[in-house]
Structures are given as structure tokens and as C-alpha cells.
């Protein structure tokens, strides 16, 4: 994509953006972080719609906050209190929403929902997560956080821990890394939650090599970034198997004793896999990561919809 790769475009997958596009986004986000008082109201005559067909805290609120900070008005479709409950199809819902707004941020449990919406709608669609693969703005803010904390994304050693099969944040993060040149990427997950073959094939296509390892303790002293995800009990056909493996994918203060200066990231919420005693360690990067959600999503909305001078 070129200099104006973002303007008016859908944001469906991080794979659709080049490294140069991401660097452009990060430069704008950096400016929003460093010079918050200079933020232009570049969306002052715009309306942003949010449509979350699945629960969300950080993504929905940070997109709303980002839009408001840029001067936009925000309208929210609550599926549980709308015609969606009466069986309205996604295309019909999108056609209605696009007549009320200039951009739609959506989340949906089904893979390809954002792509379908983008084919129906005329306004830009921003995918706030669909199915188990794509959550582009999460991956963008993850990479931005690493860049700010470590100074670079290239050449670092990464471990992705937990559910690499169904967690869209983990897959999108790996897709994002495929635009860079990490030194090594370890995947640490139980057998039933390992990377999907089609995801692996996509990463292979971008020459991103991954190494499956059994135990996080074996690589913790060899990595710069630990990217964690929740392991959800309902993903296991046998609940006993969940009880057996869950401890192996937990990070605590004592687990991190050998971690040197590795940062620990997590898209949150956490449900036991990341102990609260990690919060006070310099390794803990997840709250900063969540905080970066607003400037990165501001930059995204600004580049896609804004009346830009930047």
C-alpha cells in the first residue's frame, strides 16, 4: 500500500497492510502519545458506529474513546437490544448502520464476518475481531507497544504462550510479526490448542518460522517478549485435561525469576493464567499495552477517516 493506503479503506486483517503502512500508523500514534495536546479534531463532522456481536471491554471502549478524542460522535448497536435478536442478518444490519454512520467498527463470532460486511457496506469497516484469526487493531497496538518498550520489533525473540489455535489475538499477533524479521518465534501451547494448519501455511508464505516447544520454562531466559493468551476451559473436550495442563501455561513472579528483561504481554482479560504478583515487576507490559489501545486506534481512525494534515 502507498502513502494513502489507509484513506477510506477497510481494516479487516493486518495481513492486508505492509510494514511501511504499519510504520506510518505507528508514527501517527507516537505523535498522539507524545503530544496529546496537539491532537486535531480530524473527525469532528463524523459519526462512528460500533457493532459488537460478542462481548468486548477494551476494544469497544478504546475505539469509542479514540473516536471521541478525534471529535467524532459515536453510536452503538447493542445486538441484544436490537433487531439482531429478531433474526436480522448481518448484511441487513450493516446496510442500516452505514446509512447512519461514516465508519463501522464491528466484532463478530464468525470468521469472515467483517469481510462479508465490507462487501455489503460502502463505509469503511474496521474489524474489531472476527472468528479465531483476525483482530488487526489488537495486533497493531501489540507491535506498537513492543516498539515503544523495546525500541524495535525486528531481531527480537518471541514466545507466544497459551491458546494459539482459537485466540484471535495470538494469530493476529503472529500475522503482524510476519511483516517483520523476528530472530525466533516459539509457540508454547497444549496439543489441542496448537496453531491451525492454514495459519501455519500463511506464516510459511511470509517466511515466518515458528518453533513448537513444550515448556515455557525452557525458553523464558531466551526471549525478549512473552505474548500470553487465555486458555479457555470450554476448548477442551475433556475437563480433566484442562485441569492437568492449565498450570503449565501460567506466569507468576517466580516463573519469571529467570526471565531477565523479557516483557510480558497479554491482550486481557486474564483469568488466572497471569498472576497478580507479576503486576509489580518491570516485566509487566500488559497495562501499558492496554493503554496503547487508544492512541493506536486514534491513529487508525485518523488515517482511515480523518481530514488529515498529519
Amino acid at each position: 500500500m502507498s502513502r494513502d493506503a489507509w484513506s477510506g479503506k477497510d481494516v479487516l486483517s493486518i495481513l492486508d497492510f505492509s510494514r511501511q503502512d504499519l510504520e506510518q500508523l505507528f508514527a501517527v500514534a507516537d505523535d498522539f502519545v507524545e503530544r496529546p495536546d496537539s491532537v486535531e479534531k480530524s473527525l469532528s463532522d463524523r459519526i462512528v458506529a460500533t457493532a459488537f456481536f460478542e462481548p468486548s471491554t477494551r476494544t469497544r471502549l478504546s475505539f469509542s474513546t479514540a473516536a471521541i478524542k478525534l471529535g467524532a460522535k459515536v453510536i452503538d448497536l447493542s445486538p441484544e437490544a436490537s433487531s439482531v435478536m429478531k433474526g436480522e442478518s448481518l448484511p441487513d444490519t450493516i446496510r442500516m448502520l452505514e446509512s447512519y454512520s461514516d465508519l463501522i467498527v464491528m466484532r463478530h463470532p464468525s470468521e469472515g464476518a467483517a469481510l462479508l460486511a465490507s462487501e455489503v457496506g460502502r463505509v469503511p469497516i474496521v474489524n474489531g475481531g472476527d472468528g479465531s484469526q483476525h483482530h488487526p487493531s489488537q495486533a497493531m497496538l501489540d507491535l506498537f507497544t513492543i516498539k515503544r518498550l523495546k525500541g524495535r520489533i525486528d531481531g527480537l525473540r518471541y514466545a507466544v504462550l497459551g491458546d494459539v489455535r482459537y485466540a484471535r489475538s495470538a494469530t493476529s499477533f503472529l500475522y503482524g510479526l510476519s511483516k517483520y524479521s523476528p530472530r525466533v518465534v516459539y509457540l508454547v501451547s497444549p496439543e489441542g490448542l496448537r496453531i491451525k494448519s492454514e495459519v501455519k501455511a500463511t506464516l510459511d508464505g511470509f517466511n515466518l518460522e515458528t518453533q513448537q516447544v513444550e515448556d515455557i520454562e525452557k525458553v523464558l531466559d531466551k526471549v525478549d517478549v512473552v505474548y500470553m493468551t487465555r486458555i479457555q476451559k470450554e476448548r477442551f473436550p475433556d475437563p480433566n485435561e484442562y485441569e492437568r495442563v492449565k498450570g503449565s501455561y501460567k506466569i507468576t513472579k517466580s516463573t519469571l525469576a529467570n526471565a531477565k528483561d523479557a516483557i510480558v504481554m497479554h491482550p486481557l482479560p486474564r483469568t488466572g493464567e497471569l498472576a497478580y504478583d507479576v503486576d509489580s515487576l518491570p516485566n509487566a507490559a500488559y497495562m501499558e499495552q492496554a493503554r496503547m489501545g487508544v492512541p493506536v486506534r486514534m491513529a487508525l481512525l485518523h488515517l482511515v477517516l480523518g481530514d488529515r494534515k498529519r
Partner: protein
Amino acid sequence: MSDKETMLVQKISDGTVIDHVSAGKSLSVLRLLSNPQNRGVTVALVMNVGSSKMGRKDIVKMEGVELTDEQVQKLALIAPLATVVTIRSFRVTQKKNAVPPKVVTGILNCTSTTCISVKEKESVQSIFSLAGSSPLSYKCKFCGRILSEQEISAQLG
């Protein structure tokens, strides 16, 4: 086809012979090509005959029917080695190899239960793009799930 094979079934004056169908797949081929226009036409199936190229093969003959390019492409989904021969006045007028289409719309179903294309409420037409020719595989446009040759055959058989 050899003379020995042609003796099994009477020659057709006008129509189509589909040769080099994988053994056991001729009924699937017929199902795939059936439409209201060719209801009632004379059809002959030769099943499980020897083939120097394939070991065993099936042959389908359809009297008075010529396949469109789209039908020949569809055919490649279950008979990727098939040869389609058009006969007019007992003479071969055209021979085409079945070539898998680059995009298949509305024929295959995604096997991912979380794909938007399988959600009944959304009425989405499935769209698959060719991912590999040998063995045949197709990729779902919506979720990226790959359908293998066996899965494609199972769906169309």
C-alpha cells in the same frame, strides 16, 4: 478409448463422452452434471475398466448433450484427470481436459462451523479459490479453511 472398450457400449451419434473419470466416480459425475435440461437423455456408464493411464477408470456417455465450459470446470472438482470428448455425427469434434476452476461459487461448503458462510441466517454464497491442483485443494474466501481432494469428493459424491 480402445476398441475393446467401445464394444461395451454402443457408439453415440451426437453427445459427450467423459473419459478418464476416477474409478467409482461416474455416478458423482452424473449427479454434478444433472440439470432440468438434460433430464431424460440417454446415459451410459462404464465402470471400473482397465486404463493404461489410471489403472482403473470410469467412462460416462451422454447422448445429445454437450458440456459448457463451466460444466467442464465443475467436472474437474471430482474428476481432475477427465477428458471431455464432444461427438457430432459419430465424429470427434473437440477434446478438452477438465481444468479445475480458479474460483468455485456456491458448490462447495466450508467445513469450519464458525465460518460466516455456513451460518444459515446470513444466506452467504460460499466462495472457494483454487489452492492446489495435485492433489486438488480449495481455500474458503471467508475463513481460509482448506478443503482437501477427499473432502471435495465427499461433498460432491
